[in-house]
């Protein structure tokens, strides 16, 4: 990648606040990541870490008020989405950036057939006629491997199984070959076996289209099999970001290390699982300094005072926001 081509999607120091009558809540507080073409970047975080809000901020789906983007930039091939005129932004949604939601049952309109909802993409953005657009919808359903597409195109979402519904959702997101697809917990609502099928489908589609896939999840298992690179979020902020392999073998942040120690892994069979002490902070009362310090096994007094800057670690593109990033990184896993 040459230096003068801007990356596909670059989010820098993004901050999102919710201003309610009962005070301001910082949901996203300094999130940064970069997504390249044909790459899968996992945004990993616990529930409430702000990852879904961040995704909606990128899509421009947050309602203002109460949500306000107070700082940062979101650049799609160098073009700042946040300062774009609303009409241009809207035109980019679904065509250049699209989103797959967690629960297809509620995310699909219950009173419209899936054919209506799929063909709408072609009719609105491409100005195609009803018949042509419907044919496209059938082709799309074939492409995401929904059996008997020509017949099922006239069915309503509730007539599909959970996995098939999520395929419809994916088909809709991919309809216009967008450059970036954001998948917000795409498999959380599904059975484990179906989860694997959906992830495989996403991978195959990515290979066909070279799309950049931003995979938002709390599931380390999903991340392990799908992600090229991983950005870990804690309390609305990026705490570590690295290549998947690198992050799994040599985490550079105590939080990431804690996450890895708390789930069973094949490469660590026989070792005890160690949970992270305490609970993630409320967005309304994020600790000062490093937000993780109250739960961190190696916290020192300065962690409560100074927010750690990003340290670049030995491997290329590995960054960690911890005062002791080097030591954590060097320490052997397990």
């Amino acid at each position, binding site marked *: 990648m040459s230096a003068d081509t801007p990356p596909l999607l670059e989010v820098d120091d993004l901050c999102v606040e919710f201003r309610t009558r009962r005070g301001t809540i910082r949901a996203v507080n300094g999130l940064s990541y970069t997504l390249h073409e044909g790459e899968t970047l996992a945004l*990993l*975080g*616990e*529930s*409430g870490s702000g990852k879904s809000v961040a995704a909606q901020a990128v899509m421009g789906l947050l309602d203002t008020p109460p949500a306000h983007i107070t700082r940062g930039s979101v650049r799609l091939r160098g073009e700042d989405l946040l300062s774009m005129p609303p009409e241009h932004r809207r035109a980019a949604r679904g065509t250049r950036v699209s989103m797959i939601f967690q629960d297809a049952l509620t995310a699909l309109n219950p009173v419209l057939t899936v054919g209506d909802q799929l063909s709408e993409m072609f009719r609105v953005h491409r100005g195609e006629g009803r018949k042509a657009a419907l044919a496209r919808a059938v082709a799309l359903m074939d492409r995401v491997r929904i059996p008997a597409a020509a017949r099922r195109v006239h069915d309503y979402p509730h007539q599909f199984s959970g996995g098939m519904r999520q395929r419809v959702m994916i088909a809709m997101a991919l309809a216009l070959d967008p450059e970036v697809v954001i998948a917000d917990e795409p498999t*959380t609502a599904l059975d484990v076996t179906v989860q694997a099928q959906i992830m495989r489908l996403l991978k195959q589609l990515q290979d066909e289209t070279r799309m950049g896939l931003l995979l938002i999840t*709390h*599931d*380390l*298992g999903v991340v392990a099999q799908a992600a090229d690179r991983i950005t870990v979020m804690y309390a609305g902020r990026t705490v570590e970001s690295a290549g998947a392999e690198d992050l799994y073998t040599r985490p550079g942040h105590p939080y990431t290390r*804690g*996450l890895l120690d*708390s*789930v069973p892994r094949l490469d660590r069979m026989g070792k005890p699982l160690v*949970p*992270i*002490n*305490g*609970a*993630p*902070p*409320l*967005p*309304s009362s994020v600790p000062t300094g490093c937000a993780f310090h109250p739960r961190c096994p190696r916290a020192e007094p300065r962690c409560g005072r100074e927010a750690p800057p990003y340290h670049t670690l030995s491997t290329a593109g590995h960054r960690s926001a911890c005062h002791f990033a080097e030591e954590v990184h060097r320490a052997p896993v397990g």
Partner: protein
Amino acid sequence: MTETTRTLEATSGAAEDTASDTTPPPSRQRASLGKDAWFELRRRPTVWAALITLLLMTAMALTPGAFTSLLTEAGDRCDLADSKLGPSAGHPFGFDLQGCDYLAQVIRGTRPSLLAGLAVTAASLLIAVVLGLLCGFYGGRLDALVSRITDIFFGLPFVLGATVILVAFPDHGLGAMILVLTVLGWTTMTRIMRSQVIALADADYVRAARMLGARPVRLMLRHILPNAVTPVIVVAMLNVGAVISGEATLDFLGVGLQYPQVSWGLQLNAAQAFVLDHPHLLLFPALFLSATVLSFILLGDALRDAFDPRLK
């Protein structure tokens, strides 16, 4: 995301735990809901206006004599010579057909309206809670029977149902009105209560309590009732207004309370022939009636918004 759910999701220690299947512990949710609701209610001027109006109306219903002697000169004396006279100093509401001070009459009309509204709603609420709990919890034949009966009552528009019963009813006192209005009015709240109970009886925390050996009565009263009753209370509040309005309509139609009883509906009935020339006869009881109904509706609306913030 509300703070409550946020705390609950945060109870899991490690990242692989999803919080989606954690049911909020009921008691805690309720305490915080109640607090939130009060927070919402306190900051609405309409709530205060409604509360003050109702307090005033209640006082008038309890001690009409105190108000009439305080606000009118010789409020009990009627003189046909004064019949239908308009407002004047000392008689701010003027006089009614019989030449009685209209303010005093309107104040006396407060009691039956308020009493009917509250009594009918209380009785309906009681029926709704008992039947709703039993039907929703046990289901089966009782539930089927009650459901069919509510269906039937829903097939009977209120005014028509009340008319047809009252025309054949031997007694037209306030007690009879309350009875008839309750017979026609218990179904809405019962339906709501029942569906709430059905939803909650299936909730994880109720299942957990059941598995721990809680008896049905305890399950119903301690675990289900407190969580199921909120929407019913909201409807009850709105219902008080509806009953008061309905009772007045029946009085107006001539199938409700009968002269010489005193009520706003009867006063409006008496006023109808003279509306054009003596609008004050219509205006004042209508004002009191509407203010009372409005207050209950405002309170009900505010309660609903406070408990269901999505619609604000």
